[in-house]
Each structure stands twice: as structure tokens, then as C-alpha cells.
């Protein structure tokens, strides 16, 4: 079971990573970041079967951090939406070299 769970978590993580890299909608990118974090949570829970209960404690910490990040991230997305009326990152091009 452990191998399957770890492989599933790796697949989810790769989907999240790919999503951040190829999608251009800020909210979808943010959701993909959350998918990454939850893939890691799955790893922690799966591994905790073999290593110890602390893995499940880590998951709670990570969920808390993800919630805090969501609050700040959505606030930033709202603040940029007020300026641009869009959340497509291709339109945000004031800063470039």
C-alpha cells in the first residue's frame, strides 16, 4: 500500500506543478499550489503508517499554513483584480526586464 500511496502523491504533486507552470489564471494557479500541498499531506499520512503518528500531526500544521496562505493569496488576487479587472497573469506585465 505504501508504494501506491507514494506514487499517487507524486502524480498529484506533478499535476499541481504542471498546473502552476502552464495555466495562466491566477486562481487556478493558486489551486494547483494547494494541490501540491495536499499531495504532500497524502505522503505524510501514508508514511505515518510505517514511521509513526507524528506524520499525521504534521498534516495539521500544513493544513493550518495552507489556510493562512489561502487568506493572504486570495486577498492579493482581489487586490490585483481591482486594478486590472482580470486575473489572467498574462495581462500583468508592468514588471519586466
Amino acid at each position, binding site marked *: 500500500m505504501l508504494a501506491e500511496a507514494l506514487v499517487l502523491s507524486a502524480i498529484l504533486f506533478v499535476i499541481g506543478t504542471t498546473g502552476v507552470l502552464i495555466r495562466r489564471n491566477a486562481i487556478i494557479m493558486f489551486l494547483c499550489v494547494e494541490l501540491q*500541498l495536499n499531495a*504532500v499531506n497524502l505522503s505524510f499520512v501514508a508514511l505515518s503508517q510505517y514511521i509513526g503518528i507524528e506524520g499525521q500531526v504534521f498534516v495539521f500544521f500544513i493544513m493550518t499554513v495552507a489556510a493562512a*496562505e489561502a487568506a493572504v493569496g486570495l486577498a492579493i488576487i482581489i487586490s490585483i483584480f481591482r486594478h486590472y479587472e482580470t486575473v489572467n497573469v498574462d495581462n*500583468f506585465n*508592468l*514588471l519586466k526586464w
Partner: protein
Amino acid sequence: MTLDFVSNVDYIWALLPEIVLSVWAMVVLLAGVRRPDDPPANTAALGWLALVGILVAAVANGWLYGVTSTADAAMITVDPFRLFANWVFLLGAGLTVLVAGPYVTRQRLQAGEFYTLILLATVGMMFMGGTRNLILLFLALETMSIAAYVLTAYNRRDRKSAEAGLKYFILGSFSSGFLLYGIALVWGATGSVHLTEIAAVVEAGAGFTGLLLAGMALLGIGFAFKVGAVPFHMWAPDAYEGAPSPSTAFMAAAVKAASFVAFLRVFLEAFPTLYESWYPVVWWLAVLTMVVANLIALTQANVKRMLAYSSVAHGGYLLVAVAAANEMATAGLLFYLLVYTVMTVGAFAILMIVSGQSEDRLQVEDYAGFGWAQPVLAVVFTIFLLSLAGFPGTGGFMAKIYILQGAVESQLWMLAVILALATVVSYYYYLRVAWYMWMRSAAAGNDHARVWTPLPVWLALILSAGVILYLGVLPSGLLDGAMTSAQGLGVVRDGLLGLRP
């Protein structure tokens, strides 16, 4: 006083600076609260209040030098490395608070929250430098990063600030995901999240090697993002350029320092026996960062963006110290971080003054004539620029020398040569600003006669310039402190000396 962590009270003593600063952040937050019909909060008073908190935390940090810790397994360490790193973070936060006042006032930012976020980010950094537990490290990193995201997007009226905040946020949380996945895999491979226990398992050859190497690689990617190493640097120039200037100063100085301290501690304490696997990667990161960042900085006409790339380039010099991984290099890194913090915040302070505490007049042409209009400020700025460039007689020069010495001790000849060459290249873009300042006359309508430099800014500038000149002439006192702090970290490479040609 001896702490054995049998009683839980010991944790309070070991965490005294962090606790003081956290509580003080709440006090500053409450002091900044206003009802809508009240007059706005007094920015200067809040700034002094925040500064007092930083000073109290610094006193607590100094007091910890008299404390010895007998337990190595605790989540928090009381070693000189942590305490030295704390000085750097507190210095960076204190200088930022001093120089931020006029900008916060003129841009009508909410001062209470601004200073609170700086203090809370500093608490996160202090935990990053002080922990040997990967999960606590992650929480500390997020405490710092989330505060830094908000500081970047802090000016809601400014499009650039929002854009920078979004870019920083997406890529920052993206990199945190990598770091976290690395932690999960390392924990899965070794059964521990404690750095010394991981090192023991790895040394014994137990654990799952494939999982461990994958976890280490992911940790490395996460840290490379956080320290802004090329090719993981793309967030840095945008975030630094778009953020309000005081936030940029804070991020370029203290946030970067914290990332480096954690990077160094994790790789030197948890994976010393895998040095042969990770050092080539850090080697390449260092080379790419030094070369690419310096070359792009050459082309920048915007001084703020030039300083952003310069910050990335300095990350390259610091990566040399990580690759060298001996005590000399670690001490050099600590020394460098302190000097770098001081000169970066100083340079951004002058940038804010020239731009009139706003986000315009950031082009290099806008510096024309500044030298003769404001000679004292211009001399101070020249000192900062020379130190950033690494001119002899400044602290920046000595810092580079120590890192070079560390690289040479580890026989990383190529890195040492590239570091020296990159430094020479960097002279051009730093000195160009100085040249505009002193050798060009101001364009019509751009008079530098009216600048706003209240007392706290002067205090910060004089302190910074003084520290840089002092360390340029008499660096040995601080170096001794850094050497003591580096003890035990970075015995890695010493064992290899003589084995390689």
C-alpha cells in the same frame, strides 16, 4: 544558566527573543488600531515603538550567550550560529523600521500593520535560524514568507505592488510546496525530521537512498527558490521592483539572509555525508547566479531593478560559501550577511530619498546632480555602492575576501576565480550610479534641493556607513565572532582536503 529542556520552562528561556518580539508585534498592532473617524496613527511613534521591541529582543538575544544548552534533541537550539543569525535579522529589521518612516507616511500606508508584519517576519526568520526540526523550519519559513507576501503587495493603490505581490506569492508558495515535499520524503527515508538524527541515519547507511536523494533534491530546489538562485530567481527582480521600497529593502536584506542561514544549516547538519552528491549542484547554481545576475544587472537603467539583480548576484557569492562548506566559509557567510544587510538597507534608504519617498524617479538619470546638491547623502550612498561592489576599505570587500578564503580552503579554485571576475563586472553598474551622481549635472526641473530625511533615517544611514567603514578597516572582531558561531558547522570539506588534486 543551563537548559536541559526537561522542564518546559526551559523552552521559554531558549525562545526569549522570539517570544519578546511576537508579543511586541501584537502591541504594535494594537497601538496602530484606529476607528474610521479618528485621526491617522502617528507613524513615527509606531516606528519608535517597533524599534524598542527589536532592541529588547536584541538584549534577550545577547543574554542567551550566557546560556548553555545540554540537550541536542530539542526542536530549538541555543548555539552561537543561531544567535549570530539573530543579530543579522534584528539589525535588518531595525534598520528597515528606521528608514521606512517617511515612505510609510507619504504613501499613507497603515503603519501599525506594516511594522507588525516586519516584526512577525523577523520572528519567522529567527525560528528559521534557530531550529533543527524540519517541520518547525517549514512553519518558520511560512511565517516569514506570508508576512513578506503581504509586505510586497502592501501598497493597495499601486498596480505594481499588487502585481509584484501576486508573482511573489504564486512562486513563493510554489517553492514552499517543493520544500515541503522534500521534507516529507526525507522524513519517509530516515524516519526523523530532526537534522542531527537525519545525519546519524544517513551516516549509518540506513534509510532508503532513493527516497532520501529525491527528498534532498526537492529541499534543494525549494531553498534555491527562496534564496533566489539562478535559474530559480525569476520572481526576485519583479517582486523587488514592484514592492514598496521599504519592503524591498527588508526582503533583499533580511529575508534573503534567513533563507541562506536555513539552507546552510539544513545541508551542513543533515547531509554532511552526502556532500559529494549536493555540492556540484550548489557549485553550478553559484556560477549561474553570479554570471547571469551580474550580466543582466549591467543592462538595467532602473536603479531599483539594478539593486534587485545585484541582490540576486550577492546570493551567488553566498552560494559559493555554501558550496565550500567549511568553517571559514560559514563564518564568511555570516560576516557577509551582516555587511550585506547593512549596505542593502542603506542603499535602499538613499533610493527612497532620491525618489521622494515614492515609486518614481528611479532611473539612473534621475541621480544626475545628486552628488553636489546633497553631498553628505551622496557620500554615504557612494560608500554603500563601493561596499556592494566590494571595494577595498569597505566591509563588502572584507566579506568577499573571507568567502574567497573559504572557497580556496576547500580548493574550489574555479568558483574563487569566477567570484573575483563577477565582482569586477559588478563594478560597472554600481559605479555608473556614482558617476551619474557626481559627474552629471541635474536635468532641468529635477532639483535635489528638497529631500526629506528625518532623524531616524539619518541615524540608520550613519550607523550603516559607520559599520561598513569600521568593518572595512577592522574586520577581525566581527570575524572572530563569526568564526566562533561557525564552529561545528562545515567540517564537511575539511575531511576531504588532500584527497582531491
